[in-house]
C-alpha cells in the first residue's frame, strides 16, 4: 500500500542517527521547558529558530516538532506535582492530577498522563499519515482566490478562540499584517515602510519579532508577576498502573484523542481548547460528576490525550494548506521558510522525506517521551527546584545572541528589544500577541494571492464568490463572525474561559 511504503521512507529518515539525535534533543528540551513554568514552546522555538538554520530542513522540523509535543508532555508533570500548569495546555490537568498526587497517587497520575499521551500520539500519527496526503491532493486545485479566502477564514477562526476581546484580537491581526508589508514590494520593487533604513529592505525577520515578543517581552511579564509559591509533592512511587487502572484510562483517553485530533485541525483550536473540551466532556458523561476535581483518573487521562493529539494534528493544515492553526505552527512556517521551503499542498510531493520523516519521528518521539517521563520523573522534579532568577538571564542572553546570529546584524537586537517592549505593553493592555504573529506570517501570502486573483479576474472581486471553494470558506467565515457577534454564544464563550482560569 502507498501509505505503508511512504511510512517506510519516513521511518528510514527518522531513524537516521542524526535525525534520531535531533528528535531526541527536541523532546528532551521540550519536556524540560514543559516542566518549567514560565517558559513555553513558543518562546523556545523562537529562540532556537536561528540555530536550526544550520541543520538539514527535515532535522530542523523534527527537532522543533519534538519541542512542541514534548512540552505538552512535560507540562503535565508540573501540573500533577506542583499544581501549577507547566504549560497552558495542562491547566485542566492540575484539577484532578494534583488531587490524585495529594492522595498519594502521584505515580499513577503521572503514568496515566504519559500513557494517555502516548496512545493519543500513536493514533494522531496515523491520522496524519492517512489524512494529510488526501487533503493536500484536494488543495492542489486551489486557485489564488481560494487561498485568499482560506487564509481570511483561518485568521478569523483564530480570533474566535483568542482569550479576551474580539476587536483587540482582530486589531492585533491587522497590526501583524501591516508589519508584514514592511520591506521592498516584490512586484513594484518599491520600498514600503522602510524609513530609509537599508536593513528594513527585506522587512523585519520573523524570528526577531517572535523572540522579542515571546523571549524578551514574556520575561518582563514573568518578572513583573513576581515569584510564585511552589509546594510540590515529592512522593511519586507506584508508577505502573494496575490492570484495573488501565481499564479506567483507555476509554477516556480514546475519547480525548478523538476530540483533540478534531480540534487540533481547526485554526485557533490547539491543545489548550482540546484539553479543556475533553475534560468538560468527561465530566458531562460521567456517572458521578462529583468525583471530578477530587482526583478522578479520567480527568487526567482525557485532557492529556486530547492536548497531545491536538498538538500533532495541528500539523495537517500546516503541511497541506500552509495554514498555521496556532502560533507554534506559524513558527514552523517560519522555520521552513528559512530553508527556502513553502508549506502548502506541493510540500508532500516535493519533499516526501521531510513530510514522512516528520510523521515517523512523531511516533518515535512519543515513544522516547514515555521513557523520558516515567523512569526519569525524579530528574524533572529536580528541575523544578531551579529558581527562575537563574533561568531568565540565560533566556535573555540566548535571545540576544540568537537574534544577532540570524544575519549578523546588531540592529536586529535593537528591533527585538523594541518588540520586547511591545510584547509587555500588549500584555498590560490585555491583547494576545499570538494573532499578531499569525497576521505577520499570513499577511504577505494574502496580499500575493489577492493580487493574483484580481489579475486573473481582470479586477472583478466576484471571483471570490463564484469559485465554489472560495465561496465555501467565505460562508464559513461568515458563520464564525456570526458566532462572535451573537450575544448568547458570546456569553457561553466567556463562561468557558472563566471556568478554565478558575
Amino acid at each position, binding site marked *: 500500500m502507498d501509505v505503508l511504503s511512504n511510512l517506510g521512507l519516513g521511518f528510514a529518515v527518522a531513524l537516521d542517527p542524526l535525525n534520531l539525535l535531533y528528535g531526541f534533543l527536541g523532546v528532551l528540551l521540550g519536556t524540560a521547558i514543559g516542566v518549567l513554568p514560565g517558559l513555553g514552546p513558543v518562546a523556545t522555538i523562537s529562540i532556537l529558530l536561528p540555530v536550526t538554520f544550520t541543520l538539514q530542513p527535515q532535522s530542523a522540523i523534527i527537532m522543533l516538532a519534538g519541542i512542541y509535543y514534548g512540552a505538552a508532555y512535560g507540562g503535565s508533570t508540573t501540573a500533577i506535582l506542583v499544581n501549577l500548569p507547566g504549560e497552558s495546555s495542562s491547566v485542566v490537568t492540575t484539577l484532578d492530577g494534583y488531587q490524585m498526587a495529594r492522595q498519594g497517587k502521584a505515580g499513577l497520575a503521572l503514568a496515566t498522563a504519559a500513557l494517555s499521551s502516548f496512545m493519543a500520539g500513536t493514533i494522531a500519527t496515523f491520522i496524519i499519515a492517512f489524512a494529510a496526503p488526501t487533503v493536500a491532493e484536494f488543495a492542489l486545485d486551489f486557485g489564488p482566490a481560494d487561498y485568499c479566502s482560506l487564509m481570511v477564514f483561518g485568521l478569523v477562526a483564530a480570533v474566535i478562540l483568542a482569550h479576551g476581546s474580539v476587536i483587540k484580537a482582530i486589531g492585533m491581526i491587522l497590526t501583524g499584517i501591516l508589519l508584514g508589508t514592511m520591506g521592498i514590494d516584490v512586484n513594484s520593487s518599491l520600498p*514600503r515602510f522602510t524609513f530609509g533604513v537599508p536593513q528594513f529592505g527585506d522587512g523585519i525577520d520573523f524570528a526577531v519579532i517572535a523572540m522579542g515578543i515571546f523571549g524578551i517581552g514574556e520575561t518582563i511579564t514573568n*518578572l513583573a508577576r513576581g515569584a510564585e509559591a511552589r509546594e510540590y509533592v515529592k512522593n511519586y512511587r507506584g508508577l505502573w498502573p494496575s490492570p484495573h487502572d488501565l481499564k479506567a484510562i483507555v476509554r477516556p483517553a480514546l475519547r480525548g484523542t478523538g476530540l483533540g485530533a478534531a480540534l487540533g485541525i481547526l485554526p485557533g483550536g490547539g491543545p489548550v481548547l482540546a484539553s479543556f473540551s475533553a475534560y468538560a466532556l468527561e465530566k458531562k458523561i460521567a456517572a458521578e460528576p462529583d468525583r471530578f476535581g477530587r482526583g478522578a483518573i479520567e480527568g487526567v487521562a482525557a485532557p492529556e490525550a486530547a492536548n497531545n493529539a491536538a498538538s500533532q494534528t495541528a500539523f495537517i493544515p500546516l503541511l497541506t494548506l500552509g495554514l498555521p492553526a496556532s502560533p507554534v505552527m506559524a513558527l514552523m512556517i517560519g522555520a521552513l521558510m528559512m530553508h527556502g521551503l513553502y508549506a502548502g499542498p506541493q510540500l508532500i510531493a516535493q519533499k516526501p522525506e521531510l513530510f514522512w520523516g516528520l510523521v515517523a519521528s512523531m511516533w518515535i518521539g512519543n515513544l522516547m517521551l514515555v521513557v523520558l517521563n516515567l523512569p526519569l520523573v525524579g530528574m524533572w522534579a529536580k528541575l523544578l527546584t531551579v529558581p527562575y532568577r537563574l533561568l531568565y*538571564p540565560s533566556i535573555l*542572553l540566548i535571545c540576544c545572541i540568537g537574534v544577532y546570529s540570524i544575519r549578523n546584524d546588531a540592529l536586529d537586537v535593537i528591533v527585538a528589544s523594541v518588540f520586547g517592549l511591545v510584547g509587555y505593553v500588549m500584555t498590560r493592555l*490585555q*491583547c494576545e500577541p499570538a494573532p499578531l504573529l499569525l497576521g505577520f506570517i499570513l*499577511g504577505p501570502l494574502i496580499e500575493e494571492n489577492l493580487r493574483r486573483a484580481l489579475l486573473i479576474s481582470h479586477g472583478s472581486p466576484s471571483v471570490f464568490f463564484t469559485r465554489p471553494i472560495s465561496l465555501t470558506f467565505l460562508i464559513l467565515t461568515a458563520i464564525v463572525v456570526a458566532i462572535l457577534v451573537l450575544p448568547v454564544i458570546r456569553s457561553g464563550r466567556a463562561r468557558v474561559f472563566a471556568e478554565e482560569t478558575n
Partner: protein
Amino acid sequence: MRLRVSTDLVTGLLFLALGLFAIAYGWTYPLGTPARIGPGYFPLLIASGLALLGLVLVVRGLVAPGERIGAIAARPLVFVLAGTFLFGLLVERAGFILAAVLVVVLARLADRDFRPVEVAILAVVLVSFIGALFWLGLSLPLHPLPTW
C-alpha cells in the same frame, strides 16, 4: 467627571495612531488599478481597517467602563530592555564578552533579589558556555574582545 483610562481606550488610541500613521506614511505608494493592484493598495486597506477598529475601541472605552490598566512594572521593564538594547549597541564594537556580561547583570538587577556573588558566577558561566556554543559550535562570527 474623571476620565477612566481603560485598556480599551489605550489600545484603541494605539491602533488608531498606528493606522493613521501607516495611511499617511504610505500615502504616496501607488494604488494601481483593480486588475493590477499597486504596492499601496493592500497596506491602505489594512491600515484603514486598523484605524477603524481603533476608533471603535476608543468609543467603547469612553462609553462602557472597561478594565483599568494595572500598574506598569518599571523595574524589570527598564533593566531587561536596557540590557538587550545595550547588547545591540555594543556587541560589534565593545565585543561579545562585555555586551553579554551586561545583559546578565542588568537582567539580574531587574529583580530586587540581587546577590553579587551569585550574579558574578552566573555571568561567567553563562557567557562562557553560551558564547562557546554560538562562537565555536555554530561558528558565528563574534568578536569576543573590543575592536576599537
